[in-house]
């Protein structure tokens, strides 16, 4: 211990010694590799054939195929080899791939409409939540609002309720209003959940912008709204973008409301993915392909958000 200390003192008082850095580095890298393996396994499973995916023992080395992706996007029917032999030659590579398995493509699967639902509901609710959240956050940051702390706590508390509990009355209400299984219903619901995060995060970001600029603009004859639009928003742009990405990720990933309140028309990807079935149970290569496509945007966003991640996951409570 003392030797190590002496060494570290020689180096710098607070900086870790090279040896302790190396040990720490290798442990962290080991953990990172272990933690990422499940995801890599799924990405790899998407390129397996049906039989390789359920091989016993599991296969690490296999011949890659795009079958999983083809199965994800199509509905197929099994045919006799005679029938397939009589068909005109396959027009596309995926027709060919499917016919090798004695099947014929019958049409597109539902994955594209589900993906579109995820996008529409995600972007719709994000836009609304950030719009409402910016207005409210600006007010909380700049005006004296009676009971501001209580209101902020109320806004946050709406997010503490268990989603299944919230879904019970929402289900009844949406039935009355004909909003069950509609994109509008899901957009409104996700907006309500996201707006609490948006207000809290954006208030933090706007608090950091000095008031002097707007005050100067107000003196110059700008109205409040003009000052907000032309002075505050341009400076808050990174904060707004980070907030928007957090809202988008929430809507993109949400499952409980989606599975309880949608069944077809407005169903998003998370309740859809587990039910991609082939002949005899889950079609794992197709499920893995859907998972991969679903997760890629999240990985990109995580890298983009890296600097603001901490703020986002703690509702702005921890900033640096």
């Amino acid at each position, binding site marked *: *211990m003392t030797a190590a200390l002496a060494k570290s003192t020689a180096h710098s*008082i607070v900086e*870790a010694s090279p040896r302790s*850095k190396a040990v*720490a*580095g290798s*442990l*962290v*890298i080991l*953990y*990172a590799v272990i*933690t990422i393996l*499940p995801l890599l396994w*799924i990405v790899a499973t998407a390129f397996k054939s049906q039989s390789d995916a359920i091989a016993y*023992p599991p296969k690490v080395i296999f011949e890659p195929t795009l079958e999983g992706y083809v199965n994800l996007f199509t509905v197929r029917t099994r045919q006799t080899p005679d029938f397939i032999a009589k068909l005109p030659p396959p027009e596309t590579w995926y027709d060919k791939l499917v016919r090798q398995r004695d099947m014929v493509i019958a049409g597109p699967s539902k994955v594209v409409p589900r993906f579109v639902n995820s996008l529409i509901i995600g972007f719709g609710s994000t836009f609304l939540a950030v719009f*409402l*959240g910016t*207005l*409210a956050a600006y*007010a909380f940051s700049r*005006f004296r*609002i009676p009971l501001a702390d209580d209101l902020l706590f109320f*806004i946050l*508390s*709406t997010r*503490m*309720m268990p989603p*299944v*509990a*919230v*879904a*019970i*009355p929402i289900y*009844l*209400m949406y039935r009355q209003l004909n909003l069950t299984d509609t994109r509008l219903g899901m957009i409104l*619901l996700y*907006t*309500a959940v996201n*707006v*609490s995060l948006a*207000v809290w995060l954006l208030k933090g970001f706007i608090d950091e912008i000095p008031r002097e600029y707007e005050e100067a603009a107000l003196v110059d004859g700008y109205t*409040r709204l003009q000052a907000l639009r032309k002075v505050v928003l341009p400076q808050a742009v990174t904060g707004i973008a980070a907030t928007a990405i957090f809202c988008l*990720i929430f809507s*993109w*990933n949400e499952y409980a409301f989606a599975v309880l309140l949608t069944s077809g028309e407005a169903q998003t990807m*998370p309740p859809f*993915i587990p039910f991609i079935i082939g002949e005899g149970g*889950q079609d*794992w290569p197709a499920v*893995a392909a859907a*998972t991969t496509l*679903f*997760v890629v945007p*999240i990985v990109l966003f*995580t*890298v983009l958000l890296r600097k603001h991640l*901490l703020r986002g*996951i703690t509702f702005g409570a*921890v900033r*640096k």
Partner: protein
Amino acid sequence: MAWLFVAPTIALLLAINIFPLVWMIRLSFTSLNLSMSYLPLRFVGLDNFTDILTDEDVWFRLQTTAQFVIWSVALQVVIGYGLALLINRQFRGHSFWTTIILLPMMLSPAVVGNFWTLLLQPQIGPFNYVISLFTGVPPSSFSMTGQVSLAPWTIVLVDTWMWAPYVMLICLAGLRSIPDYIYEAAEVDRASAWRQFWSITLPMTVPFLMLAVLFRAIENFKMFDMVNLLTSGGPGSTTELVSITLKRAAFEKWRTGYSSALAIILFVTVFGAANIYVKALNKVKQR
């Protein structure tokens, strides 16, 4: 003027959160069952609440939930804090590896629960083979999701895989908030590394640690999506967390009155626990 800015948000929350909540409170005093909604609405007073609170099964579900919350949060704190201490040594490339470690918590819990069922399949999944490699136990001799003795640990394991990075990220912020001069002063006083950890590092990061514990405990108490897809409460009801019970009562048995009462009990529990905790947190901060 200020109200114009805040009103739309408040109106939306009133319409989507508060109005339904009030409606639910009303329904919790009725015997409404949606599969028999032709029956006239009958008020039963506190019957639903007494039914729930005297039901042994509900208490078992609450115990299952409490055990899940305690074990998963404890593991996440140990792993998360450990990782934060290591990453704080600022070795080369720490930023890249940190981002990799953070990935699981950004994923959809439902999708995570779903793909772990493949990884944990006794025969075709890789998990049992890795365990077998280290312990020599035949891979198909145990099932992580199908065995009563293992399933509760499986949901803890997957939850920890997903959320240890969350605790890590918050603790890392705590470690970075400690000014260097405190350690420099400790060095001058010849305090050992061990002593420095207990007298400086740990006390100064406790508020951050508690914040992480608060968030994780609330989230895990509400846990539904990941476990619903991983084990759907099974085998039997060994991993049936209280949210899953609630979903079954409300959306499978359609006992709306009963499940509204259960929802309110859960909500009050989360809220009460969070309030007590926040007060404790403030006390720690003041010290």
